[in-house]
Structures are given as C-alpha cells and as structure tokens.
C-alpha cells in the first residue's frame, strides 16, 4: 500500500470496510453452527458461546485497532498488518464454521465446502506469524529502522510464504474440524522437506531476530523510540506471561491488548506514560510476590516452633520489614535503568542544544533552556541570575530539582535549576551529569545575553550624556560667548569710526571691548571645565574615579594606599554621575594636597533612591573653621543643585569623612 496513486481517504475507507467485513464474518459463525451441526457425525469441533465471544473480542481488537491506525496514519503499514491479522483470523474461524456445516450437510447442497475447509486449514498461520516475524521489524514507523531490519522483514515474509505454501498443499489440518476430510491430491514425500525446512529455518530466524533485536533496540534507543518499543515489549511480555496460565481468557485479553498497545506505541506513546506504568508494574509485582513468599514461609516456619496465636505472623512481618526496604531500593534502581535508560544519546543532546541556539528567537536563554529541558525530558527548568531573579523558566517549580552553577571562565553567571524526568521522583545520576555538562554552554549564552544588555544600557547612557552635554554647550555659546563676541565686534567697529571724531569715546569703547574679551576668555575656560569628563564615558564612574586616584598618586608605592568600593548602580543619570565624579575627584585632590593621609577609601553605593558617596581618609583632618574653601563650596553646591546634600565631618582618632547623597531621580 505504498503507492501514491491511492489517496489517503481511499485507504482509510478501505480499512474500515475490511474491519466491518471481518466482524460480519465472525457474526456469521453462529449461523453456520446453528441447527445442531456440532452434533452431526464426524464433527470434532466444540464451539460454545464463550468461544464466540473470545473470537469476536480478539478479531474486533485487531481490526478496530488496525482500522483506527490506518485512519490516523494511512501510510503506516503497521495498521494494515493489524487489520490483515484480524481479518485472516475472522476468515479462518468463519470458513471453518461454514465448511463444517457444508461438509456434513446431508444433501451436500452448500457449495465450496472443501475449499472453505482448505482455506481454514492454513490461513491462521500467516495471521499469527506476521505479528511476530514481520511487525517488529517495521515498528513503529512502518519502515525498517535499518538495513538489518529490512533483511529481517524480507526473511520473515519469505518464510511465512513458504509456510503457507506447505500448509496449503499438505493434508494436515483439513480434518481438524470434521474427521476424515482429505484434499483431492497428495504431495510427494520429499515435498515437506523441500519447502518445510527452509520455511522453518527462515521463520525461526525471523522470529528469533525480531525478539532479540527488539530488546536490543529498546536498550539502545532513546526517547521517544524507547517508549514506543516498550509498548510493544510490554504487550508481547504480557502475552508470554499469560500464555501458560490455565485461564485461557486471561491470555486472550493479553492477546487482544497487543494491537491496542501497538497502536498506542505508534501514535500516543508519550501521552499515556508507559514508563510510569511499566515501572510500577515491574517494581510492585516482584515486591508483592516477595512479601507473600516471605510472610508465608516465615509464618509457617515459626508456627511450627511457636504454635500460639499471632506471634508467627508478627515475626514474619518483621522479617519482611527488614528485608523489603533495601530490596525495594535496589529493585527501583534496576527498574529505572531498564525502563528509562541511561544511555542518553550525548550527540543528540548537543545537537538539540545547538539547534536551540541556531533558531532566531527573542530570548536565546529561554530557547537554550528549553533544549536542555528536552534533553533530559525534565518538566521543570529555570535559569536564575546572580541576584536570584529568574531570567528563564519552563514548567511548574519542582522541589526535587537540582541546582547547577552557571560557570564560564571562572566566573559565575547564575544558577541552572532542573527538575526530574517526567514520572521520576528525582534527578538521576546520568541526567545530573548531562545537566552539568550542558551548564557551561548555557553559561556562555547567559553571559552573552548579559553583555548585550549591558552594551545597550551603556550606549543609552553615553548617548543621553552626550545629548545633555551638547544642549548645555549650545546654551553656553548661544547665551554667553556668541553675543559677547558680537558685542566686541560691534564695539570695535564703533571705536574705529569714533577714533577720528571722538577719541575719548573711542578709548572708552575699546576699554569696554577689552574687558569683555577678558570675560570671554574666562567664559571659555568655564565652558571647557564644565565639559563632561571623557573618562566617565570611556570607563564609567568607578573607572573614572580609579583613573583620577591613580593620576593623583593614590595607591602608588610611597603614597597613601587607596581603596575603591563601588557597587554597580544601574542607569545612573548623567548629571548625577558627573556631579558624583566631580565631588569625589575634588575630595581626592584635597586628601592628596592637605591631609597627609596613609589610607584613603572611596565607597560608592545606592541607598534607597540615592547615590551615596563616601570619601574617607586617616589624615590630618580639618578643623571646624576650615569646612569652607578647598573646593568644598563647589562640592556642596553640586550636591544641593541636584537636590542632595554634602556632609563633612572629622573621624576619630583622625581623618576626615566626606559624604555626599545625590538623588537618582530629580525631584
């Protein structure tokens, strides 16, 4: 059914029609046996209502599962295999019923009696063999997962064909229902050897490889293929476990669940959580068995020694308590390894993480975190920055999560928090190792994001400062120097005219002009002094302070030692930054010039919505009368201009403390 000529819709319709036909065939069985057919001479078959229900259940399970799978995946051959198997089972049972009636009909009035019996004698074989010899090799995609499996599937198909050839040509089986029935031909004695031996070899090889190969595949596979294969293995395992039970019904239920499990494995493997179901089963079934055995054995044992009352049972329970818990722990680990698999594909993990980075997204940290979470199939994952703020998060916080520092180049960039796998009580060792291995890559992403943000912020800050600076410069030139120079030019022109007529007036005008020129020079100096220090734009406030301190000789050998403790303050307004820098550099100049200090400390931090600056030295200190001068007035002026204040106080036993508090938002 690989042809592209057939539309998916036609496939779906065909699937459902065949399913209905199979059920109709089953429904026809009671009519074939009606009227005392089973009591006729020569009829070997026994058939009751229970048998009919069982057949109907199994056939319905196969054809319905098959048709539904075809419905959702028309091009997946698995659905067709399930449907075919169910259909053939329906054909077999109904053909046998019809042939039983037709062959024993007194007047032989029903046609095709022998062909129907012939059909029933062999058609059941492919219906079962295809499930064990072919289906595993095509599961779950409908295509062989490798060339090896392609050969396995071919071997299975050829083997089944040979088996059918042999069964359809030999006498065996045609007399199962009605004694004495024979085919009208007889094959030579060498025929079974010629066909049967290769058939048996091929089918045995195909089934053997399918069983072993599927288990190996499941062990090697990673999610989600592993979960898909587990569905198949669980269904097959249920059949193997129940086939030898005395209750045939239980086995039939398991057999009927096989197609359901296959469909779930193909389509819905994630939603139903096979891991959880399998882990619980594999954990609690052996534990229950063990408890039962120990209690039974020890109770019996102690009952012989101490026949009285409850004591043997109590001792038995105590033994259970002592043994069960450690065993349960080990068993859980074993089961986890079996079901969840520790052989996570490292290359695939790296691939996924890389893919998370390749896609253009708004937030590279978030997409990378998603890739990490997918890699270990975690329901919860988060990245926190150094301040504890979550910068990316997936899922609901889990108390059982592990935390890994995001380290890069010896520096930490935050914490990665990852919860356990779906259905897991805690993060397993291999998953933890995987998370640790991915953390540095995440750290690089977090770091680059932070750098990008810092760069944008810095650019913004410098741009704001530059604009403010340009505005002030324009104002200075427009209001001060411009008219001043114009006035001088006008004055000079007036003076040159007056020189001949009124020398006194000319001299007066020239004096005015010269005085103004002097003032203009002072003004130019003031404007230049008022320019924002370049160091602030290049190095930021802490860097500019360090530069100034170094330029003043602080921290140099032989000079006073210097210490700067600057807390990073975000988005410092340019005027505050500039005032802060001028206050600190003025204070440092005072320390160097007047204090004769051994040590000087500058602290820059943020208190509430203010920038606080503290310059302290252990020098000569300032007497009460000298809190003016030394630029202290201009420092105080800068602080009050911004709505802040400046405090100067002596330190004990010696030294001076200058503290300035500048509001970060202009009032």
């Amino acid at each position, binding site marked *: 059914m690989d042809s592209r000529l057939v539309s998916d819709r036609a496939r779906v319709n065909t699937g459902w029609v065949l399913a209905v036909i199979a059920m109709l065939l089953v429904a026809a069985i009671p009519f074939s046996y009606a009227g005392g057919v089973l009591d006729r001479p020569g009829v070997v078959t026994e058939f009751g209502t229970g048998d009919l229900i069982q057949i109907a259940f199994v056939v319905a399970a196969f054809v319905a599962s098959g048709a539904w799978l075809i419905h959702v995946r028309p091009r997946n051959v698995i659905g067709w295999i399930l449907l075919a198997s169910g259909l053939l089972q329906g054909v077999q049972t109904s053909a046998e019923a019809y042939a039983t009636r037709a062959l024993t009909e007194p007047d032989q009035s029903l046609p095709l009696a022998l062909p129907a019996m012939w059909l029933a004698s062999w058609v059941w074989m492919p219906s079962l063999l295809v499930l064990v010899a072919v289906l595993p090799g095509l599961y779950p995609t409908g295509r062989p997962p490798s060339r090896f499996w392609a050969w396995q599937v071919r071997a299975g198909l050829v083997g089944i064909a040979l088996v059918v050839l042999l069964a359809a040509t030999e006498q065996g089986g045609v007399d199962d229902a009605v004694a004495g029935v024979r085919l009208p031909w007889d094959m030579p004695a060498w025929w079974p050897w010629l066909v049967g031996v290769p058939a048996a070899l091929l089918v045995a090889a195909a089934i053997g490889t399918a069983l072993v190969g599927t288990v190996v595949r499941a062990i090697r596979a990673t999610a989600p293929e592993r979960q898909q294969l587990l569905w198949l293995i669980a269904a097959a395992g249920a059949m193997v476990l129940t086939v030898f039970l005395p209750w045939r019904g239980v086995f039939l239920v398991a057999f009927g669940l096989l197609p359901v499990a296959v469909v779930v494995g193909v389509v819905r493997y994630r939603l139903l959580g096979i891991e959880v179901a399998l882990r619980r089963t594999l954990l609690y079934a052996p534990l229950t068995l063990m408890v039962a055995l120990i209690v039974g054995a020890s109770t019996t044992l102690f009952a012989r020694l101490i026949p009285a009352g409850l004591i043997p049972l109590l001792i038995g329970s105590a033994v259970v308590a002592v043994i069960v818990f450690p065993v349960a722990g080990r068993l859980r680990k074993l089961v986890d390894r079996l079901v969840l698999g520790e052989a996570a594909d490292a290359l695939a993990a790296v691939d996924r993480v890389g893919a998370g980075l390749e896609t253009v997204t708004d937030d590279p940290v978030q997409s990378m975190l998603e890739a990490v979470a997918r890699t270990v199939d975690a329901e919860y994952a988060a990245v926190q920055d150094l301040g504890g703020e979550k910068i990316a998060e997936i899922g609901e916080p889990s108390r059982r999560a592990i935390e890994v520092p995001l380290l890069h180049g010896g520096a930490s960039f935050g914490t990665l928090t990852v919860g356990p796998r779906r259905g897991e009580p805690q993060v397993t060792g291999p998953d933890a190792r995987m998370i640790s291995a991915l953390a540095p890559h995440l750290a690089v992403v977090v770091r680059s994001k932070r750098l990008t943000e810092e760069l944008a912020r810095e650019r913004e800050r410098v741009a704001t400062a530059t604009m403010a600076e340009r505005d002030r410069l324009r104002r200075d030139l*427009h*209001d*001060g120097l*411009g*008219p*001043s*120079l*114009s*006035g*001088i*030019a*006008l*004055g000079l*022109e*007036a*003076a040159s*005219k*007056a020189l001949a007529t009124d020398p006194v*007036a000319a001299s007066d*005008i020239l004096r*005015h*002009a010269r005085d*103004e020129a002097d*003032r203009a020079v002072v003004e130019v100096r003031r404007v230049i002094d008022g320019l924002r220090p370049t160091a602030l734009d290049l190095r930021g406030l802490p860097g500019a302070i360090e530069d100034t301190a170094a330029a003043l000789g602080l921290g140099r050998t032989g000079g006073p030692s210097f210490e700067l403790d600057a807390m990073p303050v975000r988005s410092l307004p340019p005027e505050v930054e500039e005032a802060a820098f001028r206050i600190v550099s003025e204070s440092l100049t005072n320390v160097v010039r007047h204090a004769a200090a051994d040590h000087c400390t500058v602290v820059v931090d943020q208190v509430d919505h203010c920038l606080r600056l503290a310059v302290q030295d252990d020098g000569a200190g300032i007497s009460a009368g000298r809190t003016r001068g030394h630029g202290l007035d201009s420092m105080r002026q800068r602080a009050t201009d911004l709505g802040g204040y400046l405090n100067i106080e002596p330190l004990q036993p010696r030294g001076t403390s200058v503290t300035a508090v500048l509001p970060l938002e202009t009032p």
Partner: protein
Amino acid sequence: MTVRVIIADDHPMFRYGLSAVLTQSTAVDVVAAAATGKELLAAVAEHRPDVVITDISMPDLDGVVATRQLLAEQPELGVLVLTMHEDDEHVLAALRGRSAGLSRQGRGR
C-alpha cells in the same frame, strides 16, 4: 530728523556694542536700552521710539511676544528682530509680515 531707537538684548556687551555703533550715526538716536522684554515694553511706553531692535530670547518676556504686543498697540512701530539661529526663523515667519526686518546677530545688519 533722527530715528529714535530702543535696543533690547539681555547681553550687556552686545547692547553696549550695538548702541555704540548706532550712536556713531547722526541719523540714529538710541533713546533707551532694555535687558528684558518687560523693560522693553516699559521703555517703549516711556520713550515712544520709531524703531525697536530686539533679541528673541530674553528673560521674563521673549522678543517675539514683546514684539507682538508692541505692534498691536503701535502698528506703525518699526521692529528689527535679531537672531543667532536659523532655527528661530520659523518662529519669526509669523512676525515677518509685520516687523520691518530680520537680522542675524553677528553677521549682517
């Protein structure tokens, strides 16, 4: 007959220089000088000049507003507005029809 002129500019040297140049001319009589818009209004009311030479940006009342008020009272008053920016010219566009001239400080007169 001399032209009676009042100069208004907040910069003392510019006022002084302009006044000195105009004083050189016998046809011009600088009757008063003002540093602000309000001073200008007061000086015009007191001296009734023929022409006012005013800057645009001045404290308390800028040259544009002052000019508008003066022209409303005395449509025959000649007003010469001085500016240093080309940016200011669009502000003056509205006044241009009514004031006698527009000069850029420091360039031409």
